[in-house]
């Protein structure tokens, strides 16, 4: 991505849509765009399939990516396989461990990203960070920041963010990462984070990702009424989106709604997303 700075990125719309969580638009754009070079084509496909993964349409990815597809796409397929079935996960991780033990082609950023994603899903943050450390793309850095934040290492995340900002301050990913770090930092930074999400939804379109980001900012500032509006919009877009539901569980309680309302969201969540980390934590506490 660093190499492309300065000139126009033909895949900008595709990537941008993907990062802000507008997956269908990403898919649409990817199908529309006519890449100028074969590498670009691979890159486009990569985003296309990742958008499908984000939509949980794993089958499309598994069917489309064949054995002779480029290694980048193979990596994407690996993630799809990992996410699609619980049973194969251990095998995939073991396989991945082996691959990582050997020397890895560090230029295959996609592979690094996919591997890190799997490790992160496995809560193996060390491995994830180690993997990401080998890459230099903005997205690697963004993922590093995310992992660091999940480790509550805001200090390190800020350092990483600084690196990103040096590389390209206005990139969508940098902006988003800034917002994440700002939320973690809290205080006055929350408003900045909110503005980043707001600007993006103004500029492109409001997505669940952006709306939940806004809601998190609002709630962190104890602005419950404002958060309700945002979350309602998110709920209208997708009534079974897990993060929206979790935020609503938080929100309804803070707004003093009857416990039944909260429980309803909880049941919805249990219904659709049993494997969500939040629920895992939650259910772990129950027993």
């Amino acid at each position, binding site marked *: 991505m660093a190499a492309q700075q300065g*000139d*126009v990125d033909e895949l900008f719309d595709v990537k941008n849509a993907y990062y802000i969580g507008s997956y269908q638009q990403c898919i649409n754009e990817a199908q529309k765009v006519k890449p100028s070079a074969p590498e670009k084509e691979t890159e486009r496909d990569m985003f296309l399939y*990742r958008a499908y993964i*984000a939509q949980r349409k794993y089958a499309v990815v598994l069917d489309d990516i064949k054995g002779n597809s480029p290694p980048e796409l193979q990596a994407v397929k690996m993630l799809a396989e990992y996410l699609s079935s619980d049973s194969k996960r251990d095998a995939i991780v073991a396989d991945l461990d082996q691959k990582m033990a050997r020397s890895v082609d560090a230029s295959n950023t996609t592979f690094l990203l996919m591997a890190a*994603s799997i490790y*992160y899903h496995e*809560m*193996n*943050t*060390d*491995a994830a*960070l180690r993997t990401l*450390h080998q890459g230099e793309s903005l997205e690697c850095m*963004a993922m590093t920041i*995310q992992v*660091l934040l*999940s*480790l*509550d290492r805001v200090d390190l995340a800020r350092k990483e963010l600084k690196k990103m900002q040096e590389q390209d*301050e*206005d990139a969508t990913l940098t902006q988003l990462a800034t917002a*994440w770090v700002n939320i*973690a930092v*809290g*205080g006055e930074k*929350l408003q*900045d984070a909110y*503005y980043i999400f707001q*600007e993006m939804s*103004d*500029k492109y379109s409001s997505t669940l*990702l952006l709306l*939940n*980001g806004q*809601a998190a*900012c609002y*709630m*962190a500032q*104890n602005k419950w009424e404002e958060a309700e509006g945002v979350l309602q919009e998110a709920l*209208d877009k997708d009534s079974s989106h897990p*993060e929206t539901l*979790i935020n609503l*569980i*938080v929100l309804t*309680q803070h707004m*003093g709604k*009857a*416990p*039944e*309302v*909260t*429980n*309803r969201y*909880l049941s919805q969540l249990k219904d659709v997303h049993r494997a969500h*980390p939040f629920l895992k*934590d*939650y259910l*772990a*506490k129950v*027993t």
Partner: protein
Amino acid sequence: MLTKFETKSARVKGLSFHPKRPWVLASLHNGVIQLWDYRMCTLIDKFDEHDGPVRGIDFHKQQPLFVSGGDDYKIKVWNYKLRRCLFTLLGHLDYIRTTFFHHEYPWILSASDDQTIRIWNWQSRTCVCVLTGHNHYVMCAQFHPAEDLVVSASLDQTVRVWDISGLRKKNLSPGSVETDVRGISGVDLFGASDAVVKHVLEGHDRGVNWAAFHPTMPLIVSGADDRQVKIWRMNESKAWELDTCRGHYNNVSCAVFHPRQELILSNSEDKSIRVWDMSKRTGVQTFRRDHDRFWVLGAHPNLNLFAAGHDSGMIVFKLERERPAYAVHGNMLYYVKDRFLRQLDFNSSKDTAVMQLRSGSKFPVFSMSYNPAENAVLLCTRATNLENSTYDLYSIPKESDSQNPDAPEGKRSSGLTAVWVARNRFAVLDRMHSLLIKNLKNEIVKKVQVPSCEEIFYAGTGSLLLRDADGVTLFDVQQKRSLATVKIAKVKYVVWSSDTSHVALLAKHAIMICNRKLESLCNIHENIRVKSGAWEESGVFIYTTSNHIKYALTSGDHGIIRTLDLPIYVTRVRGNSVYCLDRECRPRVLTIDPTEYRFKLALVNRKYDEVLHMVRNAKLVGQSIIAYLQKKGYPEVALHFVKDEKTRFSLALECGNIEVALEAAKALDERSCWERLGEAALLQGHHQVVEMCYQRTKNFDKLTFLYLITGNLAKLRKMMKIAEIRKDMSGHYQAALYLGDVSERVRILKNCGQKSLAYLTAATHGLDEEAEALKETFDPEKDTVPEVDPNAQLLQPSPPINPLDTNWPLLTVSKGFFEGAIAAKDGFMDAQEGLGEEGGIKEEGGGWEVEEDLDLPPELDIPAGAGGGAEDGFFVPPTKGMSPAQMWCNNSQLPVDHILAGSFETAMRLLHDQVGVVSFIPYKALFMQTMSRGRTCYLGLPSLPCLRGHPQRNWKDCGAKQGLPAVGLRLSDLIARLQQCYQLTTSGRFEEAVERFRVILLSVPLLVVDNKQEIAEAQQLITICREYIVGLTMETERKKLPKETLDQQKRLCEVNICVVVIHTSVSFLKLIFLCVCFPYRWLFLISYHRVKSVPTIQTRKILSACEKTLTDAHQLNYDPHNPFDLCAASFVPLYRGRPVEKCPLSGACYCPTYKGQICRVTQVGRDSGPPCTTPVNLKSSS
């Protein structure tokens, strides 16, 4: 200089502005006087009666008059309404140089080459005074705007000031008119006494061409052939030269004071206009023309407008822009007025100065860009030399004293334009026309290569509109690429709708409306300058030209809403109010009638119910709207407006509405109408109307045929009769033919003398008798009996089987809105209903009914990484940091904070220590619920587990380490929940009620309250819950008790009374009950609960009934006189002074026998805990 208007003509020698209307008079060297509308840029009139050049010209201030003087020695007074010269004043003996009206008296002042100045009375049409003294041509003479003075300039190199107070006195005295007339000769004879020279100003080295008074100060400005402009000052006794402005390099033609500013304007034969600073006497600006020498200047008395006449026409101009710099955000208008940034709240119309601007620029603020997120503004200032333009970045102070606002330090840099592109970024177009992106510190963040561009405009976050020579480009700053381009020349302003879905590009004479992607939706051309615009809520663009407020729909429809006297700058439109700033920067609100554009908008959007409403209720009539509707293809709507039958008829035909057309046709009853209606009806198969039309137009042939084809034989026969009567042989025959009536045909043929044909017909059709009879009539000599063709066929239309009575069936067309009833619009509502589902109480999840003691999970840690030993030497993964949740635990001793942090163990310990909780099973649900609100979620990268946010109650000032979680449980909510419990109690669902009361009670220790009063309330809440729980459990207990034995009955009674007492203590009914006999009490209790609002009569009845049967037969364990608490386990009264065990949480009392057991009320606490002050947590305690 901003040129507003330019004309091409012969040399302009005189100019005069109309004080009110946008008119200017120009007198030309070729004898013509032109009246121009400089706003509409049109020539209104021409007056051509002078012979030779016209040099003097002046409008009268009030009357529709103007005066002119020319080289034909004539002074002419004209009425521009009557468009003619009223009269001519003769007397001067040479060219007349200037003519002016007096602002008050009916006087005209003229200066002439005959070396005299004359004052004329235009009412009596006589000369009232001749001012002599100059010894060369008098080039100019003007009245003082207030005093009785005249200033004159002459080629004798002097400027003279004349006192004409004598003339005024004479004129004001009664009967003055008469003496006036005589006075002239007196003047001439005895030397001027009416007007005397007051001052002679000498100083110019050559002839003086112009002299003028200052409007308010005792100053005179003069311009002369010595190329100098001189300023003179005078007082009562003398006058002297103040200063000289040097700079013109040829004869100065004219010099005037700026009516409002400390400026002097002069023009000259050196082809330039110069502006001088009056106090510094230095040139400020110079405007040059290439080929034209300037001859005259005129200043508008009220507006900032000037006119200058030159060799080939004139120009109307102003020195600087009068457009206020403003920006609108939400309900706020920010604008710059006199060195202040002001803020106007549209709702409250509160107008405050929020900050003072840094001074130092002589140029007014050109444009403004406001950033609501940072409350910062960019103010751009444009210099005459564009390269010297600057912008200032200010952060608006939060608090400001309106009287004396702060003057914050701004950051100034050079640049043509600066606009915000993001919350913390703005774009600057620098003088090299390259684009810089800067941050809030005014530091350059990056430089962006842009296509050639001369101006930039705001275009939402991250985008800009770039204007180049012939178009506007939408440019994405982040991607550094152009997204779209639209062709429109010289866009001056850009107005985005509030949702940025549409944009209006305003050029000098054109408006283009585009969507977000800069696709042109419509293009409007204006003949008059477009000034400003704003989007109305419903998506109509309201804009102003110099003289109109107009509207434009995105479909391109546009029209005038109202006229304007002076240009205004629209800031916002809401309802029928137009908020605007005028040229003095005053906020104003104008009312407009929005009906027309709303109507059109409704039409375009096909909101026919609205249209219909407006048709019925608004006064929307007029040819224009009908023509509009007809043109736009809504004849059926137009039909509703039209009263005129003719239009109605044609509209009805246009939309195929035969019924209405028929009605109209009946009313009109014209042949042409019927014909047209018949045609239209025939096309629709509406043959009954066709029939009527044919009948009305007496079109028998067509009617006959119509009857034939519709099979109406009876009518057809009638038609035949009619034809016979009308002696229409061929018609008659034709009808007979249609009918197949052979004998009739034979008869017709016979009657008209076609004997042979008649015979043949008869013979062919087998009418033998007839044929024979006809044969007889043939004269064998002359006539030959024609051969009968044996193969002749019967020519006869087959008779219709079924006559067509009804009209031809038409396809059922869905009825237009205006024809039928309003279509039901159910479909729209359904979609929304599914959303608002709330209220229904749902069963709680089953997972909670775990009976065994809560097994505390260990503090959840992220599982340690697998490859701990596999260090690769390059990268050491960081250890886990301290999460805010952990900090919460560290920072707080409140159980709730620990629960929110997910640390149940510590929370339990705290609860145990603080309020003696030992059993946590009932708390489990509360714990889980509380924990679930402790952390929010936000998504990082796609397909990765989400990140967690930690809402904190002290987020503003906690820093990194002092965080405390947002509690999310409020006392008021708990109190509100009580109501639900009361309802359950009332409806007799005791067990549920107890459950709920208990939850509330248990929640109280998880509260964090603000003050002492809330502590008290919380404790009261506990009391209420406790009493209800005890009471209700007792009631359920009681129901289970057996009643057989006396002892048991006694027990029952005891329980009963306690129930009552407990409840009375809650419900203030104690007095009534204390004296009531026990066996009946439970009855009462029930009734009390059934009817919460206890009617006193009923109460009394029960009481009296109870009292009658009052038999204290059995000794009960109840002493009505001693205050007591109730054991919550055994439900026996515990009188004061007896040993009691209390639950530290609920405060419930127990017999000492229950010591050490779980509290029955809370089911969590042991009834002997450490002494506890309050179970409620004050916020400050931590």
